[in-house]
């Protein structure tokens, strides 16, 4: 499943989608960036409520397929700018992290 397909199926809002064809192979939920840094895997859809620019650095470092901001969180200006500069897929949803993760798990099955 590509990031674009995931966004369509879950009706995710697209803040920045430079690589819509990127394959999503897993998922990770976490808000403590240093924790996520060592645990999220390449190809994951990373679900978080953090919206500052460090999210872009961690997404880049872990090579996540996309970041999904849950709970109706919106990226701050600096994060949006860095996501655009560094070609990071940045999406959003009103759903909770739990609901989004459950839906993602179903889709990946």
């Amino acid at each position, binding site marked *: 499943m590509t990031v674009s397909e995931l966004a369509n199926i879950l009706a995710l809002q697209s803040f920045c989608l430079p690589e819509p064809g990127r394959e999503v192979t897993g998922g990770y939920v976490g808000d403590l*960036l240093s924790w996520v840094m060592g645990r999220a895997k390449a190809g994951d859809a990373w679900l978080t409520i953090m919206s*500052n620019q460090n999210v872009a650095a961690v997404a880049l470092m872990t090579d996540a397929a996309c970041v999904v901001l849950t709970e109706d969180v919106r990226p701050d200006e600096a994060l949006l700018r860095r996501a655009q500069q560094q070609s990071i897929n940045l999406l959003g949803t009103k759903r909770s992290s739990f609901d989004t993760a459950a839906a993602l798990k179903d889709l990946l099955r």
Partner: protein
Amino acid sequence: MTPAAVAGLCRLAGLDVAALTDHNTCGNCPAFCAAARAYGLLALPGMELCTLEEVHVICLFPGLDQAMAFQDLVYPRLGDRGNDPEIFGRQVRMDVDDRVLGEEPRLLAGAADIGVYEVHTLAESCGGVAYPAHIDRDSFSLLSNLGLWDPALGFPLAEVSRRCPPDLFQRRRDLEGVRFLTGSDAHYLDQIQDAHQWMEVPAPTPQAVLDWLRRGGR
């Protein structure tokens, strides 16, 4: 933004006292303190420690020896992940004349394996003072990540950012009676604020400033 330039700008801003608190390191404090001495500025070496919970805590020390002893306690608890300069930028150490001495290979941008409840005691063990940084901010702050001010943390006061809502301490019952100061949290030279706060200390020494902080800024 070199350590010497920071010290010089602090002096130009009319400050008498300034502290350098880089993320998880005191590596540039020797240069900062040396430059401050030349400019007639009272300098406190320090660190902005990022705890396990990703709460930023300001740790200040009376001298370089104590600051470096604290760094020696923190570094082994940063984990063994290396810095990728492409993502997090270079982690340069400089001397007082802006010459590059080296680069810190460990990743300083992450969190230390040190809980926020431990920081006060750890800083005190090196003769320092610790207090949580920019508690009003919605990331990397005590209130955002821990949810409340707990007196058991042992912090003598809190730092708020320049953009702190004026009614924060009235709005929150957990902050009743908590003392605070405003920090510039300057990441760029133009964010160094002009002198606008004051402290009454018996002598212009780092120790007197730390004692003032220990008394909650009085």
